[in-house]
């Protein structure tokens, strides 16, 4: 019975919160930062979880795992749909290079920072050390447009070019993060199964074959134009099927569905209709994701807060230096302010999806610690990003 009520509470919170959060309620800036990023749902999840009310205990959370898998698949599909080549080509090639460079630089700096500086203090060792560093770096590299959305009414008179490049980079740099995150799953057999290079090759072939088969199936299904109700069924069915397949194969549902989404948006005639369907429940799903992460959040030691601050500093360093380098190295981008990184701090939903994927695939105490670090850093970044973005746009104006 508890699982039913847990599900009800979660769905209700996601649904009601979605309406409160995304439906134009006017609030002061500080409160809007809190509400618009959905941060309150992390705390609600924490409250409902085993640390406080224990309404969502461990058994219940295990029972809800299929829903978590579906969530990840859905988010992966939506993210894949952002990479429509025809639309990306409308922007200068320098933009793409800038986004990739900024993403890679942040990844490298954060990876080195946590691996060489942070982890020795936290006594993390073994294969999990590199896995945790990869996850932290991937989560750090993502950027979202939430800040731009919050400031939307004010930025009508701001420099269009800066806003355009910020929007572009924040849509694209998640690609580097996701690719980097994919590497994490190479280490899964090392941690949970007997590892051999033949096994790794077999696993790689299995995942590729599974994804290919999924893509082929998708195409068979949407070969002919179908009524909306049938298309809804097919999209839900395929998202559930592929997410399940990825989990069974020890791979990421997020990444598998990202690849499928990418292929669909570029090679399918039905892309507009499928995307419309996916985006319809994007926000309730995002809030559900926050609740799930909140439930699994373990705040055991004060050391986590210090680590989160350090991680946050590495991320800021990566973003600032990334923004500086891309505007100085590329002649086409010199017109943009060198403090472009100020506008790239908003973390958004992708790092949270990465985190949930990591939690599900690599359950351990270290995972709990890494999750806490990322969650605290996400909250810190949410509050840091808005004043800095405001400053960047004002200075340019």
């Amino acid at each position, binding site marked *: 019975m508890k699982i039913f009520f847990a599900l009800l509470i979660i769905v209700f919170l996601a649904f009601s919160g979605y309406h409160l959060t995304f439906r134009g309620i006017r609030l002061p800036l500080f409160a809007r930062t809190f509400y618009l990023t959905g941060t309150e749902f992390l705390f609600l999840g924490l409250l409902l979880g085993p640390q406080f009310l224990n309404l969502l205990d461990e058994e219940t959370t295990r029972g809800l795992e299929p829903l*978590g898998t579906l969530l990840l698949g859905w988010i992966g599909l939506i993210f894949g749909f952002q990479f429509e080549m025809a639309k990306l080509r409308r922007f200068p090639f320098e933009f793409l290079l800038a986004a990739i460079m900024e993403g890679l630089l942040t990844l490298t700096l954060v990876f080195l920072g946590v691996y060489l500086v942070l982890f020795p203090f936290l006594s993390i060792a073994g294969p999990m050390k590199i896995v945790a560093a990869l996850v932290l770096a991937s989560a750090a590299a993502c950027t979202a447009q939430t800040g731009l959305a919050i400031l939307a009414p004010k930025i009508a008179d701001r420099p269009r070019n800066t806003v355009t490049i910020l929007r572009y980079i924040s849509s694209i740099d998640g690609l580097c993060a996701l690719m980097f995150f994919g590497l994490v799953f190479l280490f899964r057999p090392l941690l949970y199964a007997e590892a051999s290079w033949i096994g790794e090759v077999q696993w790689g072939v299995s995942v590729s074959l599974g994804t290919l088969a999924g893509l082929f*199936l998708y195409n068979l299904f949407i070969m002919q134009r179908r009524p909306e109700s049938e298309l809804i069924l097919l999209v839900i069915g395929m998202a559930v*099927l592929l997410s399940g397949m990825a989990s069974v194969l*020890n791979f990421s549902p997020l990444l598998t569905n990202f690849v499928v989404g990418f292929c669909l948006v570029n090679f399918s005639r039905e892309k507009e209709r499928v995307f419309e369907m996916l985006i319809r429940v994007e926000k309730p799903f995002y809030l559900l994701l926050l609740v799930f992460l909140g439930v699994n959040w373990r705040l055991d030691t004060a050391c986590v807060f210090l680590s989160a601050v350090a991680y946050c500093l590495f991320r800021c360093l990566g973003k600032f230096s990334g923004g500086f380098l891309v505007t100085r190295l590329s002649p086409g981008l010199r017109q943009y302010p060198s403090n472009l990184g100020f506008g790239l701090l908003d973390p958004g939903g992708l790092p949270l999806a990465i985190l949930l994927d990591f939690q599900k695939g690599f359950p351990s105490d270290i995972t709990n610690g890494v999750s806490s670090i990322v969650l605290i850093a996400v909250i810190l970044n949410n509050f840091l990003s808005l004043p800095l973005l405001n400053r960047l746009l004002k200075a340019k104006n």
Partner: protein
Amino acid sequence: MADLFQQRRNLIIYFLTLVLMGGFAAWIRGLDVPTSWQRSGMVDFCLGFVLLAAYIIGQVFRMVRLPLISGYIFAGIALGPYISGFLTRDMVHDLRLVDDLALSFIALTAGGALRLPFLKQHGKWIMLNIVLQTKVIFGAMSVFVILTRNCFSLTKNLPFHLATSLAVLVGTIAVARSPSAAIAVINECRASGPFSDRILGVTVALDVLIIVLFTLTLTAIKIILTSAGALDSQVFLALFLEMSVSIVVGIVLGKGIACYIHWIGHDLPLFLLFLAFGATKASFWLSHFMESHFDFYLHLEPLLICMSAGFTVQNFSQAGPFFMENLQRIALPVYVLFFSLAGASLNLDALRSCWPMAMCLVVIRAMGIMGGSWLAGTINRDPPEHNRNAWMGYLTQAGISIGLAQLAQRQFPEIGVHLTTLVMAIISVNEMVGPITFKWALNRVGEAKK
């Protein structure tokens, strides 16, 4: 010619898709899943597979002019624990969550499908049908079980009083129908007209009345078996209270939905799914809570709550058409899942073990329905075409019948196994045959538009 070519092409595509999915499923199902993450992934994979496979099989059934839901049920049976074993019994049990969600949603649709002007106009017709069909079916089934108890291995060793109790229960459960199947077939055929409206009216109204009938039957059997029970006023009072509270809760929910549509209006399908599911689970919880904390048995009927909510929105607010339109939007995935899981949970072992008796009872029930509906139609002076075909619309049986059998099994364990085996076997046949005959009837009276 072009149509035939298109149909062949579609058939080839569906065949290829099924073959690919079959290979894919065989491979994934064969993998070892040691961690809980992988196990939950396997449940997701199976759920997705069932959804897609049932959809394809439904489309193939439609090409050969059979109802879609027969295809979904067939897919469920083929993938279920008794045939291919793709879905294990544990998985089917785990997926009850989806089942409950779907059933609540279907009850909302059933309530929304009943329009007050129609009920006012056809109320007498519906009541007469219900009374006559109930009497004939109940009488025929009960008498048959009692008279032939020595002819079948299942009932041969039962003493007379137990055989009588079994007969009364089988007779009562045989009266139950499946509104969900009726709605699904009507939606699929885009049928409209007096014939389909009346059949839906009788089916939905019977779904409510069967709860009253069943409670009376349980009390009667208690008297037969223990001579401790008695038909006192408390039983009726409790029943009246339960139904009244359920209807009132449904009205309040319905008003809530109407307000939501009026003030907010968007994302209605999601909201309705949440609400229907919440109402169902909350009523189960309340029953359990009242019983465990206050020793007071108050069983709110979730189907009645959802039906009443749907009925309120349709008939006592401006939002009826918008409400129904939004329900239709997500109806397909809900139907596919519900009927394929219903197919997967059909007990084929039960059918195998008592098929001669079950087949006899299926025929007796069909004849009872035929007789009852013909009699009602003759008294009401229905068009002969309607009168000849009406019985075919009443054959389907599903969810509620299984629920009633399980409830009776818990109350009377001495005949529980016999009852569940027999009822499951009868339902297995009726659930497969019913949608086909209903679609056939709609075509014959000319109300099917597709």
